[in-house]
């Protein structure tokens, strides 16, 4: 089985990664779909909704993002439902590097973390120097967490060493900040690749593995998340280190979010049911979670007019 290579080469990385057990796509799809049929009702639903809210990385990653947009989103992150103080805050906000300072300013000491994408997000097509500088800038501006992208081109062409070393370099540039490694699973095509990329990212020192940028379809599907949860579970078994998982992109409804939590619960296990180890990269899901939460509280279906759009 895989162990952390000391003097890495493409050949040794290849031997490690290709020595991992394969993933049968049909079987993985069936398992994820099966878990997706779990029926989470009443008290469990209430618990799941609050858990999901507390795990959201509330995200805006648009070219049209402005200071105003980011400030509004960050305010919502701290108080998702201004009318109900029992609603937990979200885990983090996620923005582009140039807006980190803005976000930092709003979330302050609320406990909401500031995450920043970096490394020539979303394509990752730039030099290592630029990627390191991008990261350093975000960290300097106050980012608690860095969401980097891997070089999918390098990965698909078998240059595992390049991906590995890049992750190591970014990890170093992160300093105290936590590093989430975005695999962009939609471009990796096979579940075997998802498993290999997960291990590569973990071996190189990533604190989290994240499915997607949100810019590529498909993004955080259930089976891809399942494969990544299996990877962190197995990695802890073998290396003794826990790595977090963040599905991102395509999680829109409470049902989507709860399915993810069921997946965590029954795959990696309850240890991962914690914002420190599991995040949901999303934006619109938050309002749906709030609406469903209110339905549970009041017994009435809620409407979008009663929740803030930020």
């Amino acid at each position, binding site marked *: 089985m895989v162990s952390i290579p000391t003097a890495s080469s493409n050949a040794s990385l290849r031997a490690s990664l290709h020595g991992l057990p394969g993933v049968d*796509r*049909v079987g993985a*799809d069936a398992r994820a779909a099966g878990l997706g049929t779990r029926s989470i009702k009443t008290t469990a639903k209430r618990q799941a909704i609050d858990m999901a809210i507390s795990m959201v990385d509330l995200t805006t990653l648009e070219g049209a993002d402005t200071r105003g947009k980011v400030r509004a989103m960050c305010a919502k992150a701290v108080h998702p439902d201004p009318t109900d103080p029992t609603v937990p805050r979200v885990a983090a906000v996620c923005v582009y590097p140039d807006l980190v300072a803005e976000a930092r300013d709003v979330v302050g000491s609320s406990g909401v973390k500031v995450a920043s994408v970096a490394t020539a997000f979303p394509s990752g097509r730039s030099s290592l120097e630029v990627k390191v500088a991008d990261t350093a800038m975000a960290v300097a501006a106050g980012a608690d967490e860095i969401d980097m992208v891997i070089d999918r081109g390098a990965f698909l062409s078998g240059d595992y060493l390049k991906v590995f070393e890049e992750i190591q370099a970014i990890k170093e540039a992160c300093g105290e900040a936590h590093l989430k490694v975005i695999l962009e699973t939609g471009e990796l*095509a096979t579940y075997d690749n998802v498993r290999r990329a997960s291990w590569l990212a973990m071996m190189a020192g990533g604190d989290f593995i994240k499915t997607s940028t949100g810019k590529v379809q498909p993004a955080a599907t259930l089976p891809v998340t399942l494969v990544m949860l299996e990877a962190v579970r197995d990695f802890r078994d073998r290396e003794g280190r826990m790595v977090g998982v963040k599905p991102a992109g395509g999680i829109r409804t409470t049902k989507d979010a709860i399915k993810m939590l069921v997946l965590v619960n029954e795959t990696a296990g309850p240890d991962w049911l914690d914002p420190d180890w599991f995040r949901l990269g999303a934006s619109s899901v938050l309002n749906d979670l709030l609406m469903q939460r209110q339905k549970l509280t009041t017994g009435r279906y809620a409407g979008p007019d009663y929740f803030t759009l930020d």
Partner: protein
Amino acid sequence: MSERLSVRKTYKLYIGGAFPRSESGRSYVVTGAKGEFLANASKASRKDVRDAVTAARKAFPGWSAATAYNRGQILYRIAEMLEGRRSQFVSEVAEADGVSGKKAGELVDAAVDRLVWYAGWSDKISSLRGSSNPVAGPYFNLSTPEPTGVVGIVAPPMGPLFGLVSVIAPVIVTGNTCVVIASERAPLPSITLAEVLATSDLPGGVVNILTGSSAEMAPWLAGHMDVNGIDLTGADAELAQKCEELAAENLKRVLRPNGKTDWAADPGTGRMTAFLETKTVWHPIGI
């Protein structure tokens, strides 16, 4: 000068490619249609049945794993060898059945033709009996026929060659091995056939031929737990029912034709399919 004394043939059993005498040491007198002495034949015992089943089981993995093409080739070869000994068979059939040389010749020819006919089925029966199944899901799903295993055959008392060939060929062409209880009344062509089989590239044990009392041997064959199927064509109603009851013990596949079989008619595929299993294999389709 006295007339030359003929050298009489000893008819033995055919087990595992060899020609042993019955372990019991028994033999019986075989007479022609007019009651004249023809030869002594071995009278096989239950232990010979047991040995024959062991030989058939031993031959099964190899024969069933042979390519269909190879099995077909061997059946063609049997037909060739049979044709090569045509005159011997004609006289044996004529003596056994009391028919004219012409009629006996036709029966031998029919036996050769039947072998050729079945030989050609070796690599075709799968496409008839198999199927690709369009299951409602991402799975490749294929059904293919496979031989049942060791098949016991009670050969018809009439038609000592044509009938015999017509029951053996369909069983072995698909990859089964068999233990045949030859016509009790007219066993001699069966042992001559065994000599043909022994020189036709047919692996030893694929066909094992026992002569003697059907009523004595068939129940041992039908009750044998390492026999997977039984063809009761040559058993009378009483023996057939007894054998069928014994065969139930390990759920043998039983072939018990209703009424008299017309060997001259188109045999159809029924004698092959009676001893074929269908195996269905599933596999996911995914990247």
